[in-house]
């Protein structure tokens, strides 16, 4: 067994529905129910579930944006990074790509300007963009190029864990394939663990080694790709596979 990068132990989270206006008492709605799992270095773990089942809440908790949860989340490595669903909102519209990619290095400190420039150009090439993209604004990029830039920016700090929240669902199918290809290649080169969140079972099948199925804040089934796709045990998993026509 290789090293763990992340361990999530019995995490539950509630959110308070504000009913003050209608006069009812505030209701506590449980979004995450006793979620436990762990991730090993360099694996791609798929997290599948319908909209509103708590996938994004879980990722927010792992990243530290959501602090109001019960249970334990242990990081065994550097800070995780994230790729967002909407490539149009996740790049600062008033900054050039070069600046955006340089930012993590500036914040980390300890690099000279020359080193930073070299690394930015290196990352642009690795993500399939060219060096002159450093001088472009996000508004001058297509959706696929933006998502490539996001992946590049997330990898600048060389994280051991990358959380990808529906990274390709805003893109059209051919671009989806290219971006997934890129993610896979970078994963192979850098041995990053990726938590791949998606509702698209076909995409998940192509990407992931291990898959978890989530329903109403609970992980109802988890197993290897083959187990989930060829011998699903839980009713909900079967339903999902059926709906996807697999």
């Amino acid at each position, binding site marked *: 067994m290789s090293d763990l990068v992340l361990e999530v132990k019995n995490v539950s989270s509630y959110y308070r529905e504000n009913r003050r206006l209608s006069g009812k008492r505030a209701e506590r709605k449980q979004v995450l129910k006793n979620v436990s799992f762990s991730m090993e270095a360099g694996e791609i773990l798929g997290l599948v579930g319908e909209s509103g089942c708590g996938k994004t809440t879980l990722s927010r908790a792992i*990243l530290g*944006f959501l602090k109001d949860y019960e249970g334990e989340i242990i990081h065994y490595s550097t*800070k*995780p*990074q*994230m790729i*967002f669903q*909407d490539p149009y*909102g*996740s*790049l*600062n*519209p*008033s*900054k050039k790509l070069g600046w955006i990619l340089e*930012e*993590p290095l500036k*914040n*980390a400190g300890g690099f000279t300007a020359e080193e930073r420039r070299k690394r930015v150009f290196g990352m642009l090439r690795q993500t399939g963009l060219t060096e002159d993209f450093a001088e472009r604004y996000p508004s001058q990029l297509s959706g696929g190029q933006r998502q490539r830039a*996001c992946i590049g*920016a*997330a990898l*600048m*700090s060389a994280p051991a864990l990358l959380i990808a929240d529906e990274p390709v669902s805003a893109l059209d199918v051919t671009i989806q394939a290219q971006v997934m290809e890129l993610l896979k290649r970078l994963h192979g080169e850098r041995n990053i663990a990726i938590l791949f969140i998606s509702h698209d079972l076909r995409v998940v099948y192509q990407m992931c080694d291990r898959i978890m199925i989530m329903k109403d804040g609970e992980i109802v089934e988890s197993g290897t790709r083959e187990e989930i796709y060829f011998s699903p045990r839980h009713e909900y998993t079967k339903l999902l596979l059926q709906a996807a026509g697999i």
Partner: protein
Amino acid sequence: MKKKNWNLLIGGLLSGIMLLFIVVGFFYTPCSPEAMDNAAKFAGVSAKHLMGCDHFGRDIFSRILKGCGNTFIVAFGTVLIGTLCGIFLGAFTGYYGGVLDEILMRVNDAVFAFPSILLALVFVSLFGGGKYNIILALGIAFVPSFARIVRSEFIRCKNMDYVKSARLMGAGDLRIMFVHILPNVMPVLVSSVLIGFNNAVLAEAGMSYLGIGVQPPEASLGRMLSEAQSYLFSKPSMAFLPGLMIVLLVLGFSLMSEGLKRER
């Protein structure tokens, strides 16, 4: 083909000419704007006095040159104070929210509820008149409107993905506020700063007209208007010319702000 942005073009041109006029006024006036000439009282247009003379025999053209400059300084200072304090307040309240935000915004509302002239009047009666006190007084009166704009833009931006991603990449709160978010607030801010500048020009004219702004014998556009009112019928150009300058100054900046809105 892109339609030409006439608003921006004409506004920019007009403002440019006015600025040139103001800069010239700082360094050169044909006559001293404060020199009185008993022989030239109410003198008409001549080669020596391009726009004639006022009731003290002072050259109107020179006074307008100088007066534009004074009005501009007051308006510029006012907007500068208002914008800087507004950005600072708006950024913190919008970004952090919570109790501090509530308190500051209620204070903001209270200040906002006063007409700016009234507020400035109170200030002047406490600390005395004069150019610099007026700048301070109007500046404070202008803070709330800018703070409000900046705050609402910060609230809009702070939940965007790029802010989250900036935080993940290790940027601190201050860096996120002023390096990541502020540039995205600028387009909105710039057009309201231009409008604010107009209001400041008018407010200065109003204050000086009431006799608490720029003190005599110094010239400012509002001051000249106020002195001209006694001679409105005997020498209308004394009121008309400074009035025209105010209109041109305000029009230039209004058109520019309108043009910038279009550009976005």
